[in-house]
């Protein structure tokens, strides 16, 4: 078990080193591969962070341009995804500052349609409808959560990041991360029970 963990740790470190080397060279093939690899995760993070698909797509493109320009700043001691999400987050905050000087809260409640929940995989019609309804409730609940809580939930439960990694991306203490996750989940509880959409 330890040998397996060690193997994975080493291969991840090697991957980070390769990425760092490629980014310093501004290797376009590497960037193509990274865009393919992280497309869904990055877009999902940005959609939840901003609450708007269109804005998330703009920021998605800007993030990769920033990765190209600032690739030499990537430290291979960390995982690439942590750095990538931090870059995307900074861009989202910059966007909000340009729009109106405010915190991440400004990304919320813009009065625009937020999460679009498409139909999920293949199951029975009843299951699908039930699951879809539940997802809609959760998505609606997410829309009403403060951006900080939403971000913490996405990074923890969708991206599967460790608490330390989330603290690294969001640049807040570990205790704050824990508290945001707890408050975020607590905030979603009434929506799961069927709060009005």
């Amino acid at each position, binding site marked *: 078990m330890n040998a397996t963990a060690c193997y994975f740790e080493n291969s991840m470190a090697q991957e980070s080193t390769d990425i760092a080397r490629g980014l310093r060279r*501004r290797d*376009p093939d590497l*960037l*193509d591969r990274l*865009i*393919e690899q992280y*497309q*869904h995760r*990055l*877009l*999902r993070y940005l*959609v*939840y962070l901003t609450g708007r698909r269109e804005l998330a*797509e703009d920021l*998605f*493109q800007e993030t*990769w*341009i920033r990765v*190209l*320009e600032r690739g030499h700043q990537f430290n291979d001691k960390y995982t690439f995804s942590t750095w990538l999400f931090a870059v995307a987050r900074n861009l989202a905050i910059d966007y909000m500052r340009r729009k109106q000087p405010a915190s991440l809260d400004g990304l919320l409640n813009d009065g625009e349609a937020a*999460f679009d*929940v*498409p139909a*999920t995989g293949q199951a029975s019609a009843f299951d699908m409808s039930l*699951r879809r309804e*539940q*997802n809609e*409730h*959760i*998505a609606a609940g*997410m829309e009403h959560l403060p951006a900080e809580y939403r971000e913490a*939930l*996405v990074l*923890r*439960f*969708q991206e599967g990041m*460790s*608490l*330390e990694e989330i603290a690294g991306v969001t640049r807040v203490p570990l205790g704050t991360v*824990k508290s945001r*996750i*707890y408050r975020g*989940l*607590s905030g*979603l*509880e009434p929506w*799961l*029970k069927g709060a009005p959409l």
Partner: protein
Amino acid sequence: MSADRNNDANNATSATKNNDAHERARQLIALAGTEELTGADNSSFDAKSSNAWLAEHLRTCASCRGFAENAGETIRGLRAIPIAAGRSLVSATQASVRRRALELQRQRERLWLVSVSCTAVTVCALLSTVALWRGFEWLGAQAGLAPMIWQIGFVVFCVTPALVAGVLLLLRGTHLADHSGSYQG
């Protein structure tokens, strides 16, 4: 009377303790997600004792058990919401990244060209300064001038082009220049 007050105080303390216990349990549930308490400190005594404590608490507390079930459902729901990047977005991003990479490469090449030019100019200037110095010295000797005179002439000869260029550049920003910045004389 005093016994009643003691009872009230005891009840309040017990209620606070209970609330703290629920709060702690819910925090542990939220952090653990749908799995057991995970993370780097899983093997630590704290994590193991927290797990044991949580399991014990959940056995006796229906409300926290409900919270745990709801948290599990919520997390499963969160993971089930599919948000995917479209093919066109990915292609457009790859194209714009490649375009920007090309721009940056051209910029780098231009910078390299400017650096090489600067180095070449510096080397040429050094070489020509030596040659000019010798030339002025020879002319001064031929004309029978005092060294001070031809040395001043040499300095004026070297500095004049830079002075003229500087004055012209300064004039571009004054009333002598029109709106397009060209010199009106």
